[in-house]
């Protein structure tokens, strides 16, 4: 048992923080959102050159695992770094590497690792309450028809991994004919799309029944790590505000009502982070991970909600003005909470795993 970062992990984290702070300040995040774009492809190639994209792909020289993916995602969350890191690295790279055939791996993984090939995943269908609802789309004659919703970065991705009935996963080229991509109007800052497939050519990637649920587990853990980082930054902003803002002749952070809100945030972020690390470690180590993943999700989704309420309460009116940065975090975090919720799903997983019938 050892919850400390290794020396290599510390370097990974510190270099990520430095690079993201320099190359992806919040002004750049705002600019991408204002431009209606999901991410900066140039910067994505740059971080790919640092090995962040092929991180977990031995064939591309990567020697890290999901725990390291989580550590990077945490730093990305801190910076609200707009990128397809979760669908491409945490989910897509793993699906292709673990389940794709030799030819697919050769065709996609090198380009994925250099940032040339951005991958997204299409999971939810109309009427789904959560990403875990079993997919219903069926393949007929190697072709796909139907609709998928809430697909991140779809307009800017190159390859879409689509969950289909089985469950199984098939790949569709983003430019394939018959695929129409319409942007959602949603509260988060990162673009989500509805995809309409009309007899679109697709190829099978993974048919093993655990492929999709495990990919979802990985995506969930990476997203939670991203959220932990975002929460950390929100806490920092709140503490900075509480130290600086004066009312009644003293910093508001010297009032217990405000100070203890910050402490509750600290306590929630720390708990979320250890739960995420455990879930990532279990998945990476091939250990039984169901309770660990479900616990992290159940805790994290509710913690995000508490943390946002605390942060806004500490900030007061400035916190909901658009010129202040908190709203960038609030919207992305709330969108992720809704995207991966509801927490009750995970409580039920934990209940089953505890032996409650």
């Amino acid at each position, binding site marked *: 048992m050892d919850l400390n970062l290794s020396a290599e992990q510390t370097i990974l984290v510190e270099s990520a923080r430095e690079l993201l702070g320099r190359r992806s300040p919040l002004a750049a995040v705002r600019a991408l959102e204002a431009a209606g774009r999901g991410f900066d492809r140039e910067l994505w190639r740059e971080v790919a050159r640092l090995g962040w994209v092929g991180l977990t792909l031995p064939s591309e020289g990567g020697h890290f695992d999901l725990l390291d993916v989580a550590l990077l995602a945490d730093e990305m969350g801190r910076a609200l770094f707009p990128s397809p890191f979760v669908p491409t690295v945490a989910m897509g790279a793993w699906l292709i590497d673990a389940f794709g055939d030799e030819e697919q791996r050769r065709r996609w993984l090198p380009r994925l690792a250099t940032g040339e090939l951005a991958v997204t995943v299409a999971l*939810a269908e*109309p*009427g*789904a*309450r*959560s*990403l875990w609802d079993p997919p219903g789309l069926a393949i007929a004659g190697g072709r796909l028809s139907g609709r998928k*919703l*809430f697909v991140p970065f779809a307009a800017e991705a190159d390859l879409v991994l689509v969950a289909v009935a089985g469950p199984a996963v098939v790949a569709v080229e983003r430019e394939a004919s018959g695929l129409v991509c319409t942007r*959602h*109007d*949603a*509260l*988060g800052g990162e673009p*989500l799309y*509805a995809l309409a497939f009309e007899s679109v050519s697709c190829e099978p990637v993974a048919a093993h029944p655990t492929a999709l649920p495990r990919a979802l587990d990985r995506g969930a853990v990476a997203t939670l790590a991203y959220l932990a980082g975002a929460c950390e930054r929100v806490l920092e902003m709140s503490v900075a505000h509480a130290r600086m803002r*004066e*009312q*009644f*002749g003293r910093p*508001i952070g010297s*009032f217990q*009502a*405000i100070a203890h809100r910050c402490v509750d945030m600290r306590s929630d972020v720390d708990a979320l982070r250890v739960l995420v690390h455990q879930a990532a470690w279990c998945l990476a180590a091939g250990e039984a991970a169901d309770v660990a993943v479900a616990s992290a999700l159940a805790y994290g989704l509710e913690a995000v*909600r508490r943390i946002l*309420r605390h942060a*806004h*309460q500490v900030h*007061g*009116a400035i*916190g*909901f*003005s*658009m*010129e202040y940065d908190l*709203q960038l975090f*609030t*919207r992305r975090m*709330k*969108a992720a909470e*809704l*995207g991966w*919720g*509801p*927490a*009750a799903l995970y*409580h039920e997983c934990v209940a089953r795993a505890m032996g409650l019938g």
Partner: protein
Amino acid sequence: MNFAFSEDEQKFRTELRAFLASELPSWWRGMFVDDPRAMPFTRAFSRKLAERGWLTMAWPKEWGGAEASPWKQAILREEMWAHDEPRGPQYMNLNYIGPCILRFGSEAQKRRFLPPMAAGDVLWTQGFSEPGAGSDLAAVATRAEPSTDGFVVNGQKIWNSYADAPAEWCFLLARTSVAAKRHHGLSVLLVDMRTAGVDVRPIDSMAGPHELNEIFFEDVAVPRDCLLGEAGQGWEIVTAGLTFERVGIARYARAGRVIELLVEHAGATGLAGDSEVRSKLARLRVQYEAARLLNYRAISLQAAGRVPAVEASIARLHNTQLEQQVSDVGLEILGLAGQLTADDPAAPLTGLLHRQWVRTIPTTITAGTLEVQKNIIAERGLGLPRAR
């Protein structure tokens, strides 16, 4: 004690609902959406309410009211809030700016300011907070220096809802004496927003348009007859006003309506059988019941001629937290699709919960934060020493 509305009151509610059903256009989603139709609609709607005697119905007959019972007024409020407050900012006129003028104003001020409010013909904004004076309102620094024929105002206000609507008048808290410490030197001025030197700058907000503005005052001349009450009486006036306001907002009615829509949604989508959804909606319903009754308790005191200062703060605690809970739980029940805003055709309940959620961010902050409310209750309600 009696927990039922009278037949007459129930009839009034039925009439109101019929009126709302016929008057509210299908696109109406409240004031805090980017829709150019909203502001003109709300003005026209207020005039129609005024014509029926329903706008300032609780005011004295002399000033355009009908001296309606606090309960009829409560019913009016509930129906308005349940329908996204089609009176727009004018609820402030009736609830506390008007009543403050009634209570503290001169005869001339009443004659000048009350009739336009009663006719639904005027928008007011409030000028309380400043960059350095939020929860600590006594730290207001905007100066109103006595001049030969009144005051000259210099300073900056912030977070002023509806100032950009545009508001025609401002209920301004300013410092008329720098010698008197803290709240002792404050006064309320009724400022014509069209005076030279007044500059309104909207602040873009998560919570929608009109929510936040700044108002800059540069050598703004305010005639002496626009001082409300006496110089130095500002703190007393504002405190009374905030108490009126706390009772004057039927957040629970809005929450109750959202709960009803969520129940319908659960029924339509099969979620009504999900035990977690059932239990969460039931919990909201119980909180709603508590918030509603605590408002009724404050109104009962008003009806008996008492000032429900602490009771109103307690009702407000429940109401604001109910609203936040309803929006959090509501979005959770919608799940993935809860992220969609009204502009997305796939948005469930036409994006209602998303709208509701962004609106509940300011809920526990504006008009006195949750913490300020609790301090008030601790000090005035429980007699605890001033929280330091």
